[in-house]
């Protein structure tokens, strides 16, 4: 098991390396110049050149890349161009926990709602319940989650006043778990809706497949109760392909968090990314891209390891 995990981690390294190259190249090719927003437009050409020269912007691309990579490996992501003098690593450290919390809670919500719904749908196939769940799922797939977010803010926050409209906590109040949760529920739910519908459909078809298997018939023939058959003998098998989805969900969660964080003013890396993109804050954008890509790689790694734990047929 350990060797398997170590091997998978080692395999992830070239991938991460490739990701840094791509994200660096994309920024190099992007239109605009990092100096364009920083400088006074009236600046003299010589001074601009001098600045570029001093900051290494005129160096060979390869030199720039390796300098950036070398610093990054040591935890130095450079400085934000917009917030003068603030290290990007500081920004990331402040924001990342918020995003991880949001994604963690969202995935728990998505799993807790979708998997039972999928199982119910599969066991009561072609019933009214199944059709209703299917209908809502398709509605969910067809609805963009920024819209769901806006609607929820409008109804539950603005009209009903049940939830705050944004932020992680009430400004100026001391830390309280309830207050944090209260702020977390809406964005986490909205982020969860991005994958809930697909996940429900996926668990349904996975369970349908499993319930057709011979070992389910064996379990029934052994006199186990329906519930035992479905949850002990069925779900354990049905979850295996769903684990893969966990790995695939992460990218869409990161993409979704960019939108959800902007809607709910949630100070995570998604919001940082959007701000960075609008302000041409290159070091920030590149850092976030690399972090997001790393998260995806870690997510896939996690899915592979879980897969090996859940499915005894996989030999490490």
């Amino acid at each position, binding site marked *: 098991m350990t060797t398997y995990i170590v091997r998978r981690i080692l395999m992830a390294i070239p991938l991460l390396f490739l990701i840094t190259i791509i994200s660096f190249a994309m920024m190099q090719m992007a239109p605009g110049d990092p100096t364009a927003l920083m400088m006074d437009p009236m600046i003299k050409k010589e001074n601009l050149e001098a600045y570029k020269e001093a900051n290494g912007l005129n160096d060979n691309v390869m030199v720039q890349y390796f300098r950036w990579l070398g610093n990054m490996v040591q935890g130095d992501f450079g400085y934000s161009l917009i917030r003068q003098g603030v290290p990007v690593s500081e920004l990331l450290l402040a924001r990342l926990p918020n995003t991880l919390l949001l994604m963690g809670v969202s995935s728990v919500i998505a799993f807790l709602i979708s998997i039972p719904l999928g199982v119910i749908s599969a066991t009561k196939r072609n019933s009214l319940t199944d059709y209703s769940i299917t209908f809502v799922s398709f509605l969910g797939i067809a609805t963009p989650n920024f819209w769901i977010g806006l609607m929820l803010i409008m109804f539950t926050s603005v009209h009903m006043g049940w939830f705050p409209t944004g932020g992680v906590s009430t400004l100026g109040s001391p830390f309280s778990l309830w207050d944090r949760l209260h702020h977390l529920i809406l964005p986490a739910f909205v982020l969860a809706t991005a994958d809930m519908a697909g996940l429900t459909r996926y668990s349904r078809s996975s369970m349908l497949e499993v319930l057709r298997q*011979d*070992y389910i*018939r*064996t379990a029934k023939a*052994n*006199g186990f109760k329906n519930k035992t058959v479905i949850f002990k003998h069925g779900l354990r*098998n049905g979850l295996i392909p769903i684990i893969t989805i966990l790995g695939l969900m992460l990218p869409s969660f990161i993409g979704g968090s960019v939108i959800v964080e902007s809607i709910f003013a949630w100070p995570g890396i998604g919001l940082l990314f959007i701000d960075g993109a609008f302000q041409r804050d290159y070091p920030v954008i590149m850092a976030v891209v690399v972090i997001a890509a790393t998260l995806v790689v870690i997510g896939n790694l996690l899915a592979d390891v879980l897969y090996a734990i859940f499915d*005894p047929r996989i030999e490490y």
Partner: protein
Amino acid sequence: MSTLLEVNNLKTHFGNKRRVVKAIDGIDFKIKKGETVALVGESGCGKSMTSLSIMGLVPAPEGRIVDGEILLEGVDLVGLPEKRMYGIRGKEIAMIFQEPMTSLNPVLTIGDQLTSVIIHHLKVGKKEAENRAVEMLDLVGFSDSRKLLKDYPHRLSGGMRQRVMIAMAMSCNPKLLIADEPTTALDVTIQAQVLELMKKISKEFSTSILLITHDLGVVSELAERVIVMYAGQIVEIADIDDLFKSPFHPYTVGLIESVPKIEGEIERLYSIPGNVPAPGEVIQGCKFAARCSKVFDRCRKEMPTLRKMDESRSVRCFLYDDEEAE
């Protein structure tokens, strides 16, 4: 010997109001205590559906038992509440299936699967269940049973898995063991092993066995009595020796003819001409008439009844009806 299982006029149908498939169209038979009865017939004749009907596992809602009774020691299993069936399946009636490769749960250990059945039915503790599981695995011929408990099914071969299935089925001392094509998916040497094992078990535990197969070789090896089914009906019931010596029904004759013989050279393997009627096909008269070599006018108009010839023998054919009448 007293009767263990009695099936009376059992009808299991599939489909909806518009199109009904009569998978089982009124069958009657008895299994005595300790007896091994074989149910033979071509694919699609309703053999497997008979076993699922007895187990109460006819896939709902498409299929349902529409008529008849299944008496296990006098208790009718048809319409018995599901809750009571939980206590019968695996305990009173156990079943082994055709596909040993897929009949065990891939994510649970052998020990987990065996002990959970034992705990469920015998209401014993985990330790005791484990001992019982080891005992059963020893019985079916494993040498390192205790180690096997921790293994997953994918590490076992087909024959080994079928033996595990037998151990599981026998673990709660069932009165009736239904074996649905238990050797079909195994290669020949393993087949013999498994048959030998089943023979030994039925003797040791005096368990009745309902053996479902299309393989007459397996039948001659194991069964005492044979029930021949065709298109959802029983066409002949006979003791094993009588059946092979003098089969009555033309279909039975055909089945026996179809077994390739080892002596002499044959140009062509014999097969019964034609096909099994398609499910749901409505046939007037005898269902076998279209394929029968001895067919005559009456067969196409009327349906023959299952006629008792003597104590142990019944046949559904006008050939024998006429002899009696004249």
